[in-house]
């Protein structure tokens, strides 16, 4: 591959500076070019490689030696494959080989494994690496060259999950299961790729934090904003949190994602405009039950996010779900979080399994009423309307009896807003006021919504 013309454009490097190989961007562009003009029937296959013990090497021997090892592996791959393939370094310890002719992939994989796993003598040390390979070929399952990189990475991550050294991209599942599987793999790939340099996820805008205002309908000020994560899949578009959060939990990346959201949101919250009395809107952040599995990590993540951002602890609400099984250790973390000055809100209040006895002992400040309670209020069915109304009043008075402040979610109509106000609810959230908004838009919303302190009450 002639890399000279690639170097000329330097805004997004097409060449990896350390190894001189094509970068991920370079490879992606090359694949896109091939997609635009690829003769049908022409073979194309791609191997995605990961040096799997590399993190350990980097940690124990230092990044400088790590870089020398990467450069050496690049030279080995170039020597072996440059005549037959495009060799790219796609990320950190990840390389790719793109073959444009018919090759026996099994043979090529064996070659890769043989030579990258041969000992390396550098800086007086002997290092033996281990490599994992994901393979994909153009064909029934991967129809365009651009899809190859993704397919090979999916195969690589499946190999990793299965604890094996090599895996071919395959579809041995029904289309629905396959989609779910792919989504999970995509998430794994996205997060994995970004694990070491999460800032890439932000620059790529693949993960974005949106903010939905929670308004005080009595003072007509924005009380707080709830941070909600969105995943903009490069090809599938917007994936709702309910689809990918359980996956993130399952594949044990929720802690990474959770800490990133918390930190991002705290930094963003510091930029929000204060109301006329000089009070900044609060910030509400969801904490996954998974994050409670490591209470120490959660606690230090919160502390770090607060100190990095300078956000006043009292402005931070951590939303837990009722499904969090409330064991004594978890109470302990909640107590410690409150001792920091943070507030605890229980999400989806009334939909879970908490007993009243439990509710009375959990250290809480807020409860959020699930929108299922109010969805029929003001609806076409008067019986449902009445039932919803009664339930809502019951839950609101329960919260009040427990000395908790209620936030009602899912307010979509003025009727709902007015009825809830009659029942004594002040804090509300829903599409009637605003949907989840990007940071810039939430700024604008707050400025527009907040009434001067001395102003008439008007909702």
């Amino acid at each position, binding site marked *: 591959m002639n890399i000279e013309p690639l170097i000329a454009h330097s805004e997004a490097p097409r060449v990896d500076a350390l190894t001189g190989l094509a970068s991920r961007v370079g490879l992606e562009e090359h694949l896109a070019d091939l997609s635009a003009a690829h003769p049908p029937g022409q073979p194309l296959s791609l191997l995605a490689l990961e040096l799997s013990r590399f993190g350990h090497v980097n940690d124990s021997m230092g990044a400088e030696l790590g870089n020398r090892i990467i450069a050496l592996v690049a030279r*080995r791959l170039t020597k072996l494959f440059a005549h037959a393939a495009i060799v790219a370094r796609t990320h950190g310890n990840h390389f790719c080989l793109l073959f444009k002719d018919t090759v026996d992939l099994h043979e090529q994989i064996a070659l890769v494994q043989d030579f990258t796993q041969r*000992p390396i*003598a550098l800086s*007086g040390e002997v290092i033996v690496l281990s490599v994992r390979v994901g393979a994909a070929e153009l064909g029934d399952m991967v129809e365009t060259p651009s899809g190859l990189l993704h397919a090979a990475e999916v195969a690589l991550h499946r190999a990793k999950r299965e604890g094996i050294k090599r895996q071919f991209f395959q579809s041995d599942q029904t289309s629905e299961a396959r989609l779910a599987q792919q989504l999970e793999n995509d998430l794994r790939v996205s997060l994995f790729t970004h694990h070491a340099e999460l800032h890439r996820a932000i620059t790529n805008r693949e993960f974005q934090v949106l903010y939905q205002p929670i308004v005080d309908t009595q003072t007509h000020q924005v009380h707080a904003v709830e941070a909600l994560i969105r995943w903009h899949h490069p090809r599938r578009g917007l994936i709702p949190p309910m689809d990918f959060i359980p996956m993130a939990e399952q594949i044990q990346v929720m802690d990474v994602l959770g800490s990133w959201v918390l930190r991002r949101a705290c930094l963003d919250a510091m930029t929000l405009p204060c109301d006329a009395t000089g009070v900044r809107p609060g910030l509400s952040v969801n904490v996954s039950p998974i994050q409670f599995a490591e209470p120490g990590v959660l606690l230090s993540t919160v502390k770090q996010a607060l100190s990095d951002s300078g956000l006043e602890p009292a402005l931070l609400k951590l939303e837990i779900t009722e499904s969090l099984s409330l064991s004594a250790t978890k109470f302990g973390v909640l107590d410690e979080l409150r001792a920091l000055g943070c507030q605890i809100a229980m999400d989806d209040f009334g939909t879970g399994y908490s007993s009243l006895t439990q509710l009375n002992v959990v250290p809480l400040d807020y409860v959020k009423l699930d929108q299922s309670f109010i969805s029929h209020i003001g609806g076409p069915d008067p019986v449902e309307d009445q039932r919803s109304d009664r339930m809502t009043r019951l839950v609101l008075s329960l919260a009040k009896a427990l000395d908790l402040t209620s936030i009602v979610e899912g307010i979509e109509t003025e009727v709902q807003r007015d009825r809830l106000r009659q029942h004594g609810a002040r804090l509300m959230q829903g599409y009637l006021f605003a949907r989840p908004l990007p940071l810039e838009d939430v700024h604008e919303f707050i400025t527009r919504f907040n009434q001067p302190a001395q102003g008439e009450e008007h909702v």
Partner: protein
Amino acid sequence: MSDLRSLAYISKNTIRGTEEDVREALRAIIATAEHNNPRLGVTGALLYSGGYFCQVIEGPQEALEALFESIQMDRRHGDVTVLHFEPIAERDFREWAMALAGVEASMRFDIEGLRQSKDELVMKEAGHHLVSVLEELVQQRQAVLQHVRT
């Protein structure tokens, strides 16, 4: 020389062919080494036995690392196991760019066993043992050659 080191490894022969093909390959390996090693300041010895190469190379660290890397990229062998890579006070094969210690000499230690071993101490010990075996073999051959000459 303060950064003088010794590296010992064993590897599996992947040359397919007759015994003569293997001997031919060995002659080529020695010829290349005799050509390149003096320039690099590298000395050493090579033994071929029972389908395995056993080699000791010694010299300045950087030259040794570069040479070892080029040896690694040789397709004539595989399954390389490094026995030791350590500083030495003096060379064991100072007169040899690459001495051929033998082609058929029966090994006095268990190569397969070594390859399975994960114990660093066992490997090191085997490496030192290999060096002394090679040294002995080289001296024997030298004695035989001198005897023939005189």
